[in-house]
């Protein structure tokens, strides 16, 4: 893609909407992942560094569900045709990501929270967990062979159509056998809106609105807010803080699973390090919007997605990430607690 000049981007209405709406699609995915960071930060004040792996496991789960229900034949389907399996895959990915998130909480965080250890050390534990999780995925061929299940699981371990003997391929790009072909629905100001894009943005926003309502209105949501504001007082008032922490990891994981499903619908393939940069971006989005603030995550995600898209249009695609980080710095300099401020504890979650 050749870089556009600013004039071309903003002067030409078509390309402007093109990049804006295109950015929204990625922004929606960032926002869903950002939720996991923002909720854990809101409740525990620590950066859940391994959340990127939670997402990555979700993307694999999507491909596995397709292999399970469809097989390994390479086909191209429309969204409508893929939808039934996609819904199962959504459940599968949510379950997988939530499971990984809960495991993470139990193994990497809870022992440290119980010891009241410094926040930094929890970050190290999370970095370790992140390493281990992504390596375990990269070693799935060897690990399954060790326990003697390689033949039964070969479709899930190796790339479709490649023999298991070819070691090390678990680290390669892993594709969903079903390629979902987007269908052009209508135009908004010249931007060709496809069914896939529409589904991504609409479902992400719907999920976030639903979650926002849960945190604002349910008993569980009150527990989250209470622990976020004052863990000790919340404990004295009978809030089970371990339950609340588990709950935040569970919800964060489910949202990451949902993001993984949307990501696989759009991109179609994944890799063991697929989560890393996306995770960093999502965390950036969370900080931009105001960490601990659910609406901030949505806003931050969408702004980041759009800004990146504009930035890559103007400076070229290679500078996409630079634009994201420079924007973050600028926003933090002007608004040190993010655009909407930090507020999981406050009533407007």
């Amino acid at each position, binding site marked *: 893609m050749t870089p556009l000049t600013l004039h071309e981007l903003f002067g030409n209405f078509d390309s402007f909407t093109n990049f804006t709406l295109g950015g929204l699609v990625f922004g929606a995915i960032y926002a869903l992942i950002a939720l996991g960071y923002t909720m854990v930060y809101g409740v525990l004040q620590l950066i859940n560094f391994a959340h990127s792996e939670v997402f990555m496991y979700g993307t694999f789960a999507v491909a596995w569900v397709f292999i399970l229900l469809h097989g390994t034949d390479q086909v191209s389907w429309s969204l409508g045709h893929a939808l039934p399996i996609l819904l199962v895959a959504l459940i599968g990915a949510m379950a997988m990501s939530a499971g990984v998130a809960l495991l993470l909480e139990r193994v990497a965080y809870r022992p440290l929270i119980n010891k009241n250890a410094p926040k930094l050390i*929890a970050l190290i534990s999370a970095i*370790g967990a992140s*390493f281990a999780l992504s390596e375990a995925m990269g070693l799935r061929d060897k690990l399954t062979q060790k326990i003697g299940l390689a033949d039964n699981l070969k479709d899930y371990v190796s790339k479709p159509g490649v023999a298991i003997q070819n070691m090390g391929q678990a680290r390669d790009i892993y594709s969903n056998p079903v390629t979902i072909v987007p269908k052009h629905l209508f135009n908004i100001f010249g931007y060709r809106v496809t069914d896939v894009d529409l589904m991504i943005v609409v479902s992400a926003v719907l999920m976030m609105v639903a979650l926002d309502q849960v945190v604002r209105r349910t008993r569980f949501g009150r527990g989250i807010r209470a622990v976020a504001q004052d863990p000790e007082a919340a404990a004295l008032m009978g809030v089970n803080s371990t339950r609340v922490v588990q709950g935040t990891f569970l919800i964060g994981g489910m949202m990451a699973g949902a993001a993984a499903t949307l990501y696989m619908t759009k991109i179609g393939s994944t890799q063991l390090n697929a989560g890393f940069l996306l995770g960093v971006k999502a965390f950036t989005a969370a900080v931009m919007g105001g*960490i601990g603030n659910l609406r901030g995550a949505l806003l931050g995600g969408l702004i980041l997605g759009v800004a990146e898209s504009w930035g890559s249009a103007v400076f070229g695609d290679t500078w996409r990430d630079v634009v994201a980080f420079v924007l973050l710095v600028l926003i933090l300099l002007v608004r040190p607690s993010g655009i909407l401020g930090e507020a999981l504890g406050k009533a407007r979650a």
Partner: protein
Amino acid sequence: MIAERFSALPKPAKVLLVLVLVLFIYALPLLRPPLITTDQIDFGGVMFTVAIFALIALGLNIVIGYAGLLDLGYVGFYATGAYSIGVLTSQHGSWPFFLTLPVAVAVTMVAGVILGAPTLRVRGDYLAIVTLGFGEIIRITAKNVDWLGAAAGIKDIPHPNNIGPAPELPFDKGGFFAIPRVEWNGLIPSLDHEHATHVLIFGATDAIPYYWVILTALILVIFGDRLIKASRIGRAWEATREDEDAAELMGVPTFKYKLMAFALGAAIGGLAGAFYASGQGGYINPDSFPLLYSMLFVAAVIVGGSGNRWGAIVGGVLVAYLPERFRDFADYRFLVFGLALMILAIWRPEGLLPPRRTKRAKAAAAEIEALEEGEIEPEEVQHA
């Protein structure tokens, strides 16, 4: 405790003991002690990497351990140092290494100030993500700017200048003298004159001279670190880390000291990068500086014991050495490394070698807890 027994020794004995230890560390790649030595990969090269990581951890300890600033983009400074060397000695110039070294350090320090000045006003946790971003920006810039060699990187970075007569191959390998290395057959040592290290010839075959140079740099930095830490600067860092507002109201210009820690840490990272670039391979590219390294560096400091320079060094050594030593696990080594990091964090949250303060504070906390539970009478404590 070893530390207590050591400090009980008379001063000459202490000096002697330290000298012997230092000599041993210098000679380590020649002695090649069994168990420690990595059999599948050149031990001298491993020790070079280990020393670089130790230096980096020492520098990052100033930023994280002393000043309390979480820097997740430290690899950016490592890269800046390396690229300064690459640009000046190979890509756009042909300066000699030892002249370029101070320039590289200065460039990195300036980079630290430029990055620190806007970002250090940002609050603690956010600093982490902002620095992470900057680390990535530096890598992406190196990857996309042709002047810096773009994705192909910079080749043919000259080795440091030889000290001693230059080699006249094939027979005279040069240097003042040659030291044979020790070969172990089980537990029986013998001298191996085939693989002798020539003092000081920086060639492509022998990593040990590089190790010696960086070890010397490491020792000098340790001295500097001690002097600075035990001065008003060290106190200002600690006060800022403990309570920034209170420090400011006690007359500490906290921003200035945070920036100083950041720039100093950057300079040490740049120093390490400079050595790395002119190391054996003489080749760097953007992928030599992945973001993941920043995580490793932070892990090194914190696993070792944030705030204690010896802890940080031990952490750096472990993080660099363990994956090389356990190449037998080949594919599993990063999995094992990740698990080990997690287990270490949970098992020793204050690090392997915590600063003495942390230990004393913990002891005090335990005492208070015991008092609250009425296990010890207050009188007893006062006599203790």
